[in-house]
């Protein structure tokens, strides 16, 4: 199983991803939640690259919510109105006793992470590999989210390589 090869920071970030998904009411852990998890765990080259490019956890959460809101308005539903009508009790959080699965794209990102570690000759899967893995997944939400935050996959990969080179020297 892939999880046994996770570095400690990766376990932390995946656990954080599950928390983020729960908090945002995502009924599966998506690739964008893996990204949020990396930001929330705030450890290692992946998190450092993101923050050096100006991506914060708060911005990414807001962007995720904005994307949900835009999706709803594309079919004529206003999330803001729903919230206003329902008041305090409107709570998207998923209760702790309900298990949420990884989405197919998130699974693919984690599989890709394994490949990334192999290509880079690393034994442990770090959150850098997970982030690189996310960038390999076609049409993924995390990449669109990053684009909206002004960060392209190429820029992010370059920054990670830069920081990796610095750590090695």
């Amino acid at each position, binding site marked *: 199983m892939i999880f046994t090869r996770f570095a400690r920071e990766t376990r932390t970030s995946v656990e954080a991803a599950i928390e983020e998904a729960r908090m945002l*009411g*995502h*009924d599966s852990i998506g690739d964008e939640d893996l990204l949020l998890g990396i930001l929330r765990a705030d450890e290692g080259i992946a998190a450092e690259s993101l923050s050096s490019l100006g991506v914060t956890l708060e911005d990414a959460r807001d962007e995720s919510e904005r*994307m*949900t*809101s835009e*999706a*709803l308005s*594309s*079919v004529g*539903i206003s*999330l803001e109105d*729903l919230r206003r009508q*329902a*008041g305090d*009790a*409107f*709570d*998207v959080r*998923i*209760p702790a*006793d309900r298990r949420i699965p990884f989405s197919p794209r998130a699974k693919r990102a984690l599989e890709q992470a394994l490949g990334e570690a192999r290509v880079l000759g690393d034994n442990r899967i770090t959150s850098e590999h997970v982030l690189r893995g996310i960038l390999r997944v076609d*049409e993924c939400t995390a990449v669109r989210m990053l684009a909206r935050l002004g960060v392209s996959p190429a820029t992010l990969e370059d920054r990670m390589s830069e920081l990796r080179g610095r750590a090695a020297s």
Partner: protein
Amino acid sequence: MPEDPREGLEAVVALRRTLEALEAAQVENAFVLGWSWARIAEVLGVSKQAVHKKHAARIKARYPGEPPGRTRRNI
């Protein structure tokens, strides 16, 4: 219809997630106003057990004791 099918499909996901929150809010509101689980379940078209299982723990945690406006009499 949204022009991009992806947008339409994502709307479905967003709606599914939002529906859960909306149900939670509406059930809580009915409960606080004194509706019985049986009555809430009836309107939702599901069994009383199903509603209770899904919502009771959460709502009771939010209102230790009886919620305001809800009295023994109307339970």
